[in-house]
């Protein structure tokens, strides 16, 4: 159990770092979506199903969507 | 006696009505904030005698204190909510003529919600509820700064938003640590348990919370956003941001330091930060050629003065600080309102473009002069008794250090006088290049300015009108035990 959690945390942090280093904003947004998704699984392990649902539906889905819409309307690459 | 919660619920309900009213008539939407702030003013003034006698505590939802969200309407809370409503009323009248373009319905809704946020911060007795209302205040400010949608406004709003959001994240971490340490969110409950917890972690939480709130209160290293935001916003919003938003942020800092943490160790640090803020603000203001930036830097300086006075933590100095807070709200709001139409007529924010305004807009220029003199601290305006009180209370303390600090404070006042006199000289005694016809600001705008002028003069001549209330406010801030007792019984 603890191994699974540790791996998830590791993956979450890796995704966060990926969001930091990617020059391609779209990839960075997807990485941050992954952070939210993994966080919502961790919330489930922490016995917080309400928060997990909110994080998955708001944090991972809608936020990513509005990020992608914004990037469509602006610029995809960080200069 | 009505519950203080109506001060929040009714304006919030009215704010939600603005879009509905706006569907019927665009013009009528502008009167909703007027109605909301008028309602709040009447209720706050009505609550004041009761609050001065004994703080009014409302437990929302009908649960016992540490389990419900508590509203604490003590002297400070009611006074500040009356002040918010008063300034809100005058500025919303001003906006009736000043805000005529763009998405006006959204403006009026956001403006009403800004008032709700400010009132909520001063009335709440719960740490997390403070965060929520703080966010209402901040987010509506971010949006209103960018209202015009020009380049400067957007940039300033982004800068404000990023720094503000960083601040709120730190604030939220602090609140989370506080909950982890104390297991409660009620301010009085935390204050009562303060002695039972290891001080090290509490100190970290305190630093995080003060840093988070300090961004909005514009305490020295955290105020980089302020000059841009206050100068790029529409003038009615600059008046509210300078007159209400930063004061409310400062109130939150002070409430946290005095009541929740009871941190006497922080006070000397805050005295120095206040003085540093004062000096930096006034010197930067002196160097400006843009009138609104000058006023914005002057707000930073004044905030420093108020922090200085409050952090001395004696009854007299805190009274002086609160007095200065009221005085700054009235004077700075007046200055921004007057400058709003001067800038609108001259088409430029450069001080040099205000030449000849004394002839073109005599009443507006007069209002500007009253505000400037009051801010500098000249009698018979409200700035005089407040600054006098601060200096006297600081000198009453023993110690050479404090006397040196008072000397610096007076030097800063001289700088302040210098740059305001320079503007007044430009307005009255320099001939404009082109002689234009006399064209005053609209009557509604002049009326709202003269509401402030009358208050500044009347309170300046009769400071006793509010000084008793301010003194009981000061003792409310300083007496933690009383606060805890009146909430937890």
């Amino acid at each position: 159990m603890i191994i699974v959690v540790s791996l998830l945390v590791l993956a979450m942090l890796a995704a966060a770092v990926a969001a930091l280093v990617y020059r391609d904003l779209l990839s960075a947004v997807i990485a941050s979506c992954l952070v939210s998704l993994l966080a919502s699984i961790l919330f489930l392990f922490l016995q917080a199903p309400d928060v997990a649902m909110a994080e998955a539906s708001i944090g991972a889905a809608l936020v990513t969507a509005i990020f992608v819409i914004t990037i469509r309307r602006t610029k995809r690459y960080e200069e | 006696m009505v519950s203080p919660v109506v001060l929040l619920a009714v304006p919030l309900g009215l704010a939600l009505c603005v879009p509905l009213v706006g569907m019927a008539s665009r013009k009528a939407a502008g009167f909703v904030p007027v109605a909301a702030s008028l309602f709040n003013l009447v209720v706050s003034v009505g609550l004041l005698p009761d609050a001065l006698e004994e703080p009014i505590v409302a437990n929302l939802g009908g649960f016992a204190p540490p389990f419900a969200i508590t509203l604490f309407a003590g002297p400070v809370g009611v006074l500040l909510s009356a002040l918010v409503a008063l300034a809100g009323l005058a500025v919303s009248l001003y906006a009736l003529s000043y805000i005529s373009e763009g998405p006006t319905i959204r403006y009026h809704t956001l403006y009403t919600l800004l008032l709700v946020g400010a009132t909520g911060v001063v009335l709440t007795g719960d740490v997390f509820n403070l965060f929520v209302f703080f966010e209402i205040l901040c987010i509506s400010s971010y949006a209103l700064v960018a209202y015009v949608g020009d380049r400067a406004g957007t940039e300033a709003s982004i800068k404000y938003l990023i720094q503000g959001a960083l601040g709120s994240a730190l604030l939220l971490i602090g609140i989370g640590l506080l909950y982890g340490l104390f297991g409660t969110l009620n301010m009085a409950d935390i204050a009562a348990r303060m002695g039972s917890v290891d001080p090290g972690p509490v100190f970290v939480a305190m630093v995080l919370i003060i840093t988070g709130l300090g961004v909005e209160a514009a305490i020295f290293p955290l105020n980089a956003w302020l000059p841009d935001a206050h100068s790029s916003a529409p003038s009615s919003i600059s008046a509210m941001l300078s007159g209400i938003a930063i004061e409310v942020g400062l109130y939150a800092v002070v409430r946290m330091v005095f009541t929740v943490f009871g941190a006497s160790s922080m006070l000397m640090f805050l005295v120095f930060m206040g003085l540093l803020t004062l000096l930096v603000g006034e010197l930067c203001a002196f160097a400006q050629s843009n009138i609104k930036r000058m006023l914005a830097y002057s707000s930073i300086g004044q905030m420093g003065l108020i922090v200085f006075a409050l952090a001395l933590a004696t009854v007299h100095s805190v009274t002086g600080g609160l007095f200065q807070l009221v005085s700054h709200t009235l004077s700075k709001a007046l200055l921004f309102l007057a400058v709003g139409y001067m800038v609108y007529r001259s088409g430029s924010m450069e001080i040099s473009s205000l030449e000849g305004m004394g002839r073109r807009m005599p009443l507006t220029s007069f209002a500007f002069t009253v505000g400037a003199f009051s801010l500098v601290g000249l009698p018979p305006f409200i700035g005089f008794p407040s600054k006098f009180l601060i200096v006297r209370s600081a000198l009453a303390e023993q110690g050479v250090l404090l006397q040196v600090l008072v000397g610096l404070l007076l030097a800063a006042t001289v700088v302040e006088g210098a740059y305001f006199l320079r503007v007044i000289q430009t307005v009255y005694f320099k001939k404009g290049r082109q002689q234009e016809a006399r064209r005053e600001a609209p009557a509604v705008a002049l009326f709202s300015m003269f509401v402030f002028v009358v208050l500044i003069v009347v309170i300046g001549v009769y400071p006793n009108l509010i000084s008793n209330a301010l003194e009981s406010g000061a003792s409310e801030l300083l007496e933690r035990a009383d606060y805890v007792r009146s909430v937890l019984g």
Partner: protein
Amino acid sequence: MRLAVGLILLAVIGVGIAVSLGGIPFGAPKTVIGDHYVDSARDDTGATNVVTSVVVGYRAFDTLGEVTVLFVAALGLGAVLAAAGGGGGRSGVEPASLILRVGNAFLFPLILLFGAYIFSHGHLTPGGGFQGGAIIASAFLLVYLSSPGKRISATRARATESLSGLVFVVVGLLGLTLGAHNFLANFLPKGVPNTLFSAGIIPVVYCAIGLKVGSELAGVVDGLMEETG
């Protein structure tokens, strides 16, 4: 330079938080009010989901503030984007594929139903107004993606926002006048726990929140997609 300063700042904050967390051991039972809520939530509010009874019962005022924050942001977004004159369609969005269009026609009502289920059962199961509202908003997002030309009626969305917000405030004010004479007091009968019609005002408030959050988030998506030229 900036990196160095940033790292130093980060280190200071990190050490501070680590010190502070040292005082909060992970997994230890500790809070008084948390225990109180768990013990008495069913009797106080009638909701079996304790988180819901905290969100819409004990700390309902926070929630009122929170939907206001979202309202402020949606309005602010509209004001910021509308500042230079709105109008115009959405350029640069290609028509969607057949599968997406047909699938959406089939899925849209189901997603709406699912969202409504989530927010109307917030007092019994995990979920509630925010989650349900977000699901409803994602149904609208799907509509925007599948048929780019389609718009929700701005007037109707704004009316939904305002009216559902007003329901919340009015329910609160009713609590002030009826019942326990407290703002947001639970003045309706609490019913039998674990049934749909229980917990007094909680389902009413959560439905209002669901509609409000749904229309606001849909409004945010709509506002960002709209091409202002």
